[in-house]
């Protein structure tokens, strides 16, 4: 009988940031326009207007970084992006004592700012620790 190979617990990366808002909550209207073939157009327009230009650029940089993390580390990493302006964002901000965004919390250690690549060594170190 073989013993399953031990897999390290994935490193948790939680990002609290200003995220684009797309309204899904008015589902009656949402549905009507989806059925009429307008859903995608509405979605794109809402997303385009949902953040000021500078924050939209920051979010794009964050998005690229998250994608690169997932490509590099796959199942070894678990990433959660939380909109700061949401109930979950408020709870996460209180819990982590964060008042400025984007805030990245790597297994409990928090960093503030948009220089995401500076976090790579920390993440690599945590992944190496988890694998051992």
């Amino acid at each position, binding site marked *: 009988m073989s013993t399953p190979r031990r897999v390290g617990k994935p490193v948790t990366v939680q990002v609290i940031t200003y995220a684009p808002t797309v309204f899904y909550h008015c589902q*009656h209207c949402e*549905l009507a326009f989806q059925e009429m073939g307008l859903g995608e157009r509405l979605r794109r327009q809402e997303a385009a207007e949902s953040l000021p230009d500078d924050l939209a650029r920051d979010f794009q940089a964050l998005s690229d970084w998250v994608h690169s993390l997932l490509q590099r580390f796959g199942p070894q990493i678990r990433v959660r992006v939380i909109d700061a302006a949401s109930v979950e964002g408020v709870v996460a*901000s209180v819990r982590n004592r964060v008042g400025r965004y984007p805030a990245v919390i790597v297994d409990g250690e928090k960093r503030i700012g948009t220089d995401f690549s500076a976090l790579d060594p920390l993440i690599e170190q945590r992944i190496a620790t988890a694998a051992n």
Partner: protein
Amino acid sequence: MNSLWIVVIGAVVIYLAYTYYARRIDRVVIQSDASRATPARMYMDGADFMPTSRFVLYGYHFKSIAAAGPIVGVITAAALWGWLPSILWLMIGVSFIGWASDYSAIMMAVRNDGNSLSAMAHKLISPRTRRIMFVFIFFYLLLIAGAFVGIMAAILAARPDVPFGILVLAVMGLAAGYAIYRMRASIIGVTVVTVGLTLAAMALGPFGATFEAGKPPDWSTAPIAGTVASFNSSINTSSLYTVVDPTNADPRIPAAVDGVRPSTPAYNADTGEINVLPSFLLASVALLVFSYLGANMAIWRFAQPVNYIGFWIMAIVIGVSAIGAILAPFTSADVGAFKLDAFKGFQPALATGALQPLWPMLFVTIACGAVSGWHALFGSVGTARQLEYETDALPVGGGGMFSENTLGLLSLTSVAITTGLAGAGAFAAGIGNLVNVATFGLIAAPFGTALGFGAFVVIVLTVVQLVFRVMRVTLGEWLGDTWVGFKNQHIASIVGMVVTMGLVLSGTWVYLWQLFGASNQLLAALSLLLVTVWLRSVGKNPAYAGIPMVFMYVTTLAATLITAYNLYVTIASAPNMAAISVAGAWAMIAIAVLLFVAAVLIAYDAWRAWGRYGAAPAAPVPVAPG
């Protein structure tokens, strides 16, 4: 009867219906199978099709289906027929029809590659059915915008303690947008300040007013409400025209004192007519300006922060009220005791000559909370594409419907513990009493009532501003090639608002609501009809969907005709009616007839499909293990 009993009855009925009926249908008829691949797993594209945890999906589904519907419908019905028929329909409707409609639509979509209801109608019944369903969807938007703006304008015009809170909400929305996205201020601080100030502004509206039992509030001594009341008096020099509300649910109709309603500037007790005053017109325009900002400013500047603040307000007020409903029988027995009549008769006596027979009108007045066709529509295009396992369909779809039912029960409790009031006024007064109990008297009932009114308007307003945002995009899409002006977002917004304003000024929001309810319930019948035909096509017993479908179909067709009759008798053919009321009534009669004809055509096509599948049923689906 008291509020605690509602909690007990609701909990017991929901438990029994879910455990012993819904689960049995899921196991024996549908035979949900966790090992069968769902569309979310088969076609995962990261957008529409995405396997999602049932806990997350349940929250998403519930948030999508629960809005102002379970509040407005229940408070209107309780005023017309009493609390007993309302609770019976809420409990029976959700137990035998509501969950079945939502759950089955999801399962039908899951078993058919995540196709929407209209696509299923096209496949199972006929191509014409899909086109007809577009008609329902289009008129739904128009009806809901008109009904919601109408009831909000009536509240703002009738209650001088409410507008200040809404004004502060608009200011706080702008401030929160700037603070969060421009100043990048702490979200905790922004939330505490903006939500706190908005709540305080809503609660402080009546500060300084004099409240005496059996008398309307005296606003003259209140710095905020008094200023609004004084301004309203200065512009309300004469009535623009009169309208009637056969249900007495309009917020401009004052509470009865010893069974008699007093005359006010907005209400003539002798004739039962409501005077449309300049303050009502002003409130309607103000709401449209608010919606215009929501529809045209960048989302981060206004719509998003307003919705964000609105969510907190709604959650706090509803949560505190729910605690009050549980505590009231123990701490303030009188507050928790039901004062509304249990049963007001099968045909309430209405001076206007309108027909409001319990059957069929109760069953379309209370739509969301008991049965709603729109849930089924949403379930088929949204939830069905995200279900990770078939066995999640019942807790998500059925569970979401049962949860929405509890919001309807809370609304019923709020109106049943008040006296002399109807509609939104009764709801707000009930919330006021429950908030008073929950805070152990810290927040006096009149301030809680102002919070109730404010929360109600916020719930509705956050929806309406987005309806107009969607309306302007639609107009640009549909008519932009005909006239380039429609592609201009400001022109398109104003055109959509003018059409809605026409319906609002016709003074018939209750009829708008009932017509909306009828179209909504007709969609529930259509979704059940589709499920019935689908079950027959795959050789399964369709009785659990077919019997409710027949009831809902006959009921909603009858209700549509009665609403058209009411519009004709009480407005279109009545003497001395304002031209705008008559025009609005005829427009709605036309919509009612259109809905009726469309529904009959679909039933005819479905009957032919039924015969087709009866002659050559498809092979039955293999039975799942276990």
